[in-house]
């Protein structure tokens, strides 16, 4: 296959379509940051148009005379077929958001970076929703003094059982899932441990004395469907 054949045009057409589909269905949130959406859409439209024009041109001008002077192009063009691999994966199954498999494999987020002295939380009637990163940073800052008695609500996935509870994790990503780094919190006191990789919302209060992981004493653990924006 060379790029300017109907098959080449068709591949570009597919790439563009899949990019647009990712944006329209919101599935792209599993792979890249939400802010990438518009850029993916622009890229998708551009690739789609280029593919469509190529396909139409190639079909319209399919002409025996063109076949003669093409011997200088070797197999280098064939590499374009490989684009079908991620397209097939996305159209057929759409790989899931990163799960607990990677939690112990990559480097963790450094919760000590970028923290100053944090403002104290004001306890209200409702638990305060926060990211796992903020929870970790507050836990590190003066041994959690900024929590006061405030209840907080964390959302993440279960990354394995531990004595007396489980580990709750969520990835931070800067660009895409390839650079994901997890933040991990130990949840203790939940009545039962949800299945690994299940998404949960945990309500509770900070508990002092977690060794390397910040600890949350849970009062309530609710299983939820995987969110649209699975990364922090």
């Amino acid at each position: 296959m060379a790029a300017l054949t109907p098959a080449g045009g068709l591949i570009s057409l597919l790439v563009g379509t899949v990019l647009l589909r990712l944006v329209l269905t919101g599935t792209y949130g599993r792979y890249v940051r939400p802010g990438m959406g518009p850029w993916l859409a622009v890229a998708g439209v551009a690739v789609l148009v280029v593919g469509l024009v190529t396909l139409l041109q190639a079909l319209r001008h399919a002409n025996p005379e063109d076949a003669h002077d093409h011997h200088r192009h070797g197999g280098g063009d064939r590499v374009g077929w490989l684009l079908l691999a991620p397209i097939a994966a996305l159209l057929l199954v759409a790989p899931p958001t990163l799960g607990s498999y990677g939690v112990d494999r990559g480097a963790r987020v450094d919760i000590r970076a970028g923290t100053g002295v944090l403002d104290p939380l004001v306890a209200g009637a409702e638990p305060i929703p926060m990211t796992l990163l903020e929870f970790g940073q507050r836990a590190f800052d003066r041994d959690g003094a900024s929590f006061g008695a405030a209840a907080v609500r964390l959302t993440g996935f279960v990354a394995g059982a531990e004595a007396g509870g489980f580990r709750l994790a969520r990835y931070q990503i800067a660009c895409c899932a390839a650079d994901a780094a997890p933040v991990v919190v130990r949840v203790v006191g939940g009545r039962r441990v949800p299945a690994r990789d299940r998404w949960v919302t945990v309500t509770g209060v900070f508990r002092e004395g977690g060794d390397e992981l910040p600890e949350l004493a849970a009062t309530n653990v609710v299983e939820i469907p995987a969110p649209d924006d699975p990364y922090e």
Partner: protein
Amino acid sequence: MPGRMVVKGVNEATSVGAASDRRPVDLGVAVAAVVVAAAVLRPVLERLLDRPAVAHWATVFVAIAVQAMPFLVLGVTISAAVAALVPAGFLPRVLPRRPALAVPVAAAAGAALPGCECGSVPIAGRLVARGALPGAALAFLLSAPAINPVVLTATAVAFPGRPEVVVARLLASLLAATVVGLVWVRTGRDDLLARARRRRDDDGPPLAVLVATAQRDLLQAGGLLIVGAATAATLQTVVPRSVLDAVAGAGPLAFVAMAGLAVVLAICSEADAFVAASLTQFSLSAKLAFMVVGPMVDVKLVALQAGTFGRGFALRFAPLTLAVAMASSAVIGWWLL
């Protein structure tokens, strides 16, 4: 028939031996094959994704490909625009001819291209094809993904309160790109760039040339990107963290390990600062090596360069760049960090 000339020019790259009268049949066969393959593959893929390691691999693989696409499209569009709009012979006329000036200027010009490394390869290839001094085009290729404002801002965010890291990254990357460019001019192995130089541009109205060039570059660079994404995803899935922890404490070894990690992880230059910052076991100098080497040499870039400039080129250029980038980060890291 005036229209025929255009068509011939634009169509000149159709495949070897694909007799045109068979093309519609080829297309039909391709479509049928895709449909059948989809029906067969789906249950197989679904079962595979039940395994956590496979799911992790697939997500990282798709993520790298998806993340790179907008940048690749930007690079391919600029490259195609140069092909379509800049007249042949223009670049050599306007660019500085003395290497001692041209190379550093080209390296500094990299700051003007916001994006990551996937976009700069087709642009550099186009510059070489259009007669720019190869050493200068290569310096641009190396510096653009590392020193543009987007990447430097990301670096500042990833290392809060440590502006010296941003300065060190800028200086070390500029230094490495300039040195590699000058070494290339000195050794004069421009014969290795024959593949990029031979590339004849299409004739015809600018818009037709733009689309044809974009289409060809997109499929080639995109396909090679897939090779790199698969390699990086595989390494990310199989290399355990304990290996990292083991080498992190060991001074010079940690430095080399971080450079090696940058090569195999193939993280986008806009994100690598965050990854470097999260590798808390390592020293700042080792993190600098990670951020200087990553945008210049990694598995997906080498695949892209091999496809654009030729394998012989990539085999010499990648080790040269790796060595210079490591030396440059060692010097700047020792001085600033």
